[in-house]
Each structure stands twice: as structure tokens, then as C-alpha cells.
């Protein structure tokens, strides 16, 4: 169920979400999104362009982070605005565990018409990978 506006205050925290991203997830996202950039699946090319290894699509990281908001909102259609700034690549090792991604969120502002702004903190291996991640959610 969606949180009711009356139950939400500045500082309300969203449930923490921890997920893992493997090379197989990158291939699946490449196909689904149409973003076939080689740095997301080819170690040799990734290193040639100066990256530490194969990295996740920024929009995969952003999409996984948005799940924390849609799950909390109840209805994904309630997310009326979503913005991210990519600050650090998520390096995905060639093993079964892949990279870990942790998403925390809190209500940062109450806006007009039952809308709230949620600020996310998205980290991998303890480092922030999005320097800005914000959603505006229209609650019930």
C-alpha cells in the first residue's frame, strides 16, 4: 500500500534496498535498453579507454535505485520526476557475485498537492556512485 501523505514527514526513511549486479545483468540490461556500448560488456575495450574494468550502465544503476522509490510508493506511476547525476562508475567483476549496490532514501521535502521529494543515497563498496538522485512522488 502507498504511504498516505499524513504518515510521511521530512526525514521519513525508505526501506534500505541491497541488490547485486553481475555481468549477466549487464548483458540483459544492454538488450532491454538498446544501450550496446562495449564498455558494459567487454573488459579489453573498457581497459583500453582507461576504465578499471567493465562498468554498469549508469541507467541500470539509476533504474535499480528507482526501484527503492517505486516499491515504497506502491504505484510506480506515482513517480513524476526522477533525476540522477553519475559520479563514479560501478565496476562489475567477472565473477558470480558481481557488484553490490545499496540504496537508502529519505523524504527531504514536502511539496504542494501531496507530492514529496525523496533524496537517495546510492553506494557500491561504500562509495557513492550517484552524487545526486532525487525523485518527486505524488502520494495518494
Amino acid at each position, binding site marked *: 500500500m502507498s504511504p498516505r501523505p499524513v504518515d510521511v514527514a521530512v526525514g521519513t526513511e525508505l526501506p534500505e534496498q541491497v541488490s547485486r549486479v553481475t555481468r549477466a545483468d549487464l548483458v540483459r540490461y544492454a538488450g532491454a535498453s538498446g544501450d550496446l556500448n562495449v564498455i558494459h560488456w567487454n573488459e579489453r575495450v573498457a581497459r583500453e579507454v582507461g576504465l578499471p574494468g567493465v562498468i554498469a550502465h549508469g541507467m541500470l544503476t539509476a*533504474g535499480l535505485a528507482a526501484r527503492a522509490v517505486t516499491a515504497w510508493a506502491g504505484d510506480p506511476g506515482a513517480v513524476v520526476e526522477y533525476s540522477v547525476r553519475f559520479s563514479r562508475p560501478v565496476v562489475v567483476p567477472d565473477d558470480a557475485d558481481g557488484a553490490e549496490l545499496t540504496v537508502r532514501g529519505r523524504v527531504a521535502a514536502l511539496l504542494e498537492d501531496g507530492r514529496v521529494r525523496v533524496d537517495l543515497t546510492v553506494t557500491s563498496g561504500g562509495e557513492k556512485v550517484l552524487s545526486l538522485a532525487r525523485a518527486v512522488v505524488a502520494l495518494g
Partner: protein
Amino acid sequence: MALDAGLVGRSYPPSAVYEVGREKIAEFATALGDPDPVYRDAAAARAAGHPDVIAPPTFAIVLSLGAGNAVVEDPEVGLDYSRVVHGEQRFTHHRPIRAGDRLVATAVIDAVRTVAGNDMLTTRVDLATEDGEPVCTTHSMLVARGTA
């Protein structure tokens, strides 16, 4: 070479119509590991107040990537794509994208700037139904490292 500030406002012809399919939405949701039934089950979507299954909030990137390619490949813009990384992304949803939508994407260059030797190019893509109903506006900022 620094990007020309005169590029701001440059617009591109509307895309061909993109018909949003149920299977494509489900495929995208699966790629995000998201089991939410509102992306797959029309009855669940209707119970949530939508006429059909809706797409995840970041699905619009599928269309905005395609429309943005017109800008990236524009020789007048002269972006060195081998040095490009995605800097920022924003979605403003006028309503959720849903299965059956027939969408047209129109790209316009929204901003160019140069910071610390990096060229930054922001493209706005407006997604609307073929009848002209606004559905989503995206802003994508690309950074070309060390090209300015």
C-alpha cells in the same frame, strides 16, 4: 574543441512512431530485477488506476537514447563520442508511459558548457503521443572528457 554555444536551441525532426509493447515493458522491468505486477499484468495495472500496464520510471531512456543519437551523430555538433560518458539524467513524467502508447520523440539541444576542459552537452527529448499529448520530458547531459 569546445562546443559552440550557438548550438543551443538546435532541434531535430520528430522520430518515427514508437509503439510501446507489453513484452518490451516486461523485458525492461526484468532487466531491472523488478517483479512489480503493474509492469506485466493489465488487471494489476487497472487496480492501480492505469488503463494498461505501465513502464518503469526510467523506461523512457529507451526512446531518449534513440532520439539523442541524432544529436550525438550530428557533424555540426562534433562530439567525440569515444570520450563521452553519461553525466546526468532527468525524467519528468506528465503521465506514466503505458502499453499501446504510440510515441514520437523530438530532440533539442538544451545547453552546452565547458567546465575544466570537459565539454558538456544537454539534450532535451520530448515524448508525446502521435496525437500530441505530452507524456514525458527527458534531459540527458553527456560529458566529453578532455575535449574542450
